[in-house]
């Protein structure tokens, strides 16, 4: 390479090793260095000088706290924290399992309670239906149709056994603090409690059956009213329907 073209690159080498060239100058010089062995030697010589410049300062010790800070960042110093985290994770896992088991236990208890309720309801319905079937199969049973206030159904009355079975459709659902109460009605319009029931939301009809402790023959009909839960000694709420025998 002619010396007059070589010189500008060579003059930039001291600034190059100090990192004082801009990007364009660096690119040009490095392209030149790829083919210029003398300049490569110059770079190596000045690089040694710049490396030595890094060491051309008298030592200055940092504070003792810096060593402690560094030590605190090493794995051995962080290990107790990790162990603590492991313990915490272990405890968390155990706690999680306990919570899950408690939830499952509670859920199982809830399911058990629900099943018991359903069993009681089904048992009650089965009893009512068996009573109704028994009544239907008995020759002296009176069958009374119900069609009142949009409610339809059938009332089976057995005077001989003082048994009554009621099948009603389209009964309105009730708030939790209310129940339907059935009254026997005599010729003097006196009411005698016959029992209570609530419609089953899972079924399109409601059944109610009972063996009366009073002779059915002494009464002329039944009425159904809405009463507070637990029932009333006499009708207090709105009447759902009334039907005569």
């Amino acid at each position: 390479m002619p010396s007059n073209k070589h010189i500008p690159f060579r003059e930039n080498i001291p600034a190059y090793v100090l990192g004082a060239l801009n990007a364009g100058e660096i690119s040009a010089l490095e392209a030149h260095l790829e083919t210029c062995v003398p300049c490569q030697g110059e770079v190596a010589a000045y690089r040694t000088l710049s490396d030595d410049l890094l060491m051309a300062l008298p030592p200055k010790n940092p504070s003792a706290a810096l060593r402690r800070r560094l030590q605190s960042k090493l794995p051995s110093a962080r290990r107790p924290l990790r162990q603590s985290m492991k313990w915490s994770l272990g405890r968390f896992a155990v706690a999680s399992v306990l919570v899950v088991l408690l939830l499952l236990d509670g859920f199982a208890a809830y399911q058990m309670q629900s099943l018991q309720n359903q069993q009681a309801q089904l048992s009650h319905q089965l009893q009512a239906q068996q009573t109704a079937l028994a009544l239907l199969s008995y020759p002296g049973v009176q069958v009374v149709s119900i069609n009142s206030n949009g409610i339809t159904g059938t009332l089976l009355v057995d005077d001989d056994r003082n048994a009554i079975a009621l099948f009603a459709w389209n009964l309105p659902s009730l708030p939790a603090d209310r129940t339907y109460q059935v009254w026997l009605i005599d010729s003097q319009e006196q009411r005698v409690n016959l029992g209570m029931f609530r419609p089953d939301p899972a079924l399109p009809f409601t059944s109610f059956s009972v063996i009366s402790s009073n002779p059915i023959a002494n009464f002329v009909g039944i009425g159904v009213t809405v009463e507070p839960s637990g029932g009333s000694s006499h009708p207090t709420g709105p009447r759902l329907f009334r039907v005569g025998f």
Partner: protein
Amino acid sequence: MSNLEDAELAGQVARGNEKAFLALYDRYAGRIHALTLRILNDPMLAEEATQDTFLKLWSRAHSFSAERGSLLLWLLTIARHVALDRLRLEARRPTLSDSSDPEEAWQNIPDGNSLTEEHRWRSLYFAVQSLSTEHRQVIELAYYQGLSQSEIAETLGWPLGTVKTRLRAAMEQLRRDWNR
């Protein structure tokens, strides 16, 4: 541990030996901190840069190769980059004066009669100090402040050509003094 060679200690650090790491810290913290303090001119920032440098030693010791240079040079190169990055992040103004006291430096310098590495930097330190103010300024601004020649010209209010000439002359003088 303190008698082991740098390369051997670095190898142990690469394998997670904390005692080796602390031995290297004790050996070179003063040298690293001197550089970061010179660049950042702030004790707190300099300690952070020194800490970051040694954390890089801890995490990257496996990449050190003794064939390419000394461990101290490797650490100082890392420290310079860390400190210059921090300097740019802080957007700090360049510092033009060397705050180190030559008399204090003498007290800290090990045996100067040997041909050890310490002797080399002791000689170079005084070679830098013997430069004219203009020559020392351009060296300091370029190497310890990370400024380009254009930025040095702007900082000092000198023509760019003057900066280039003085920087080249300063390096040539150091080279002559160093080889003398």
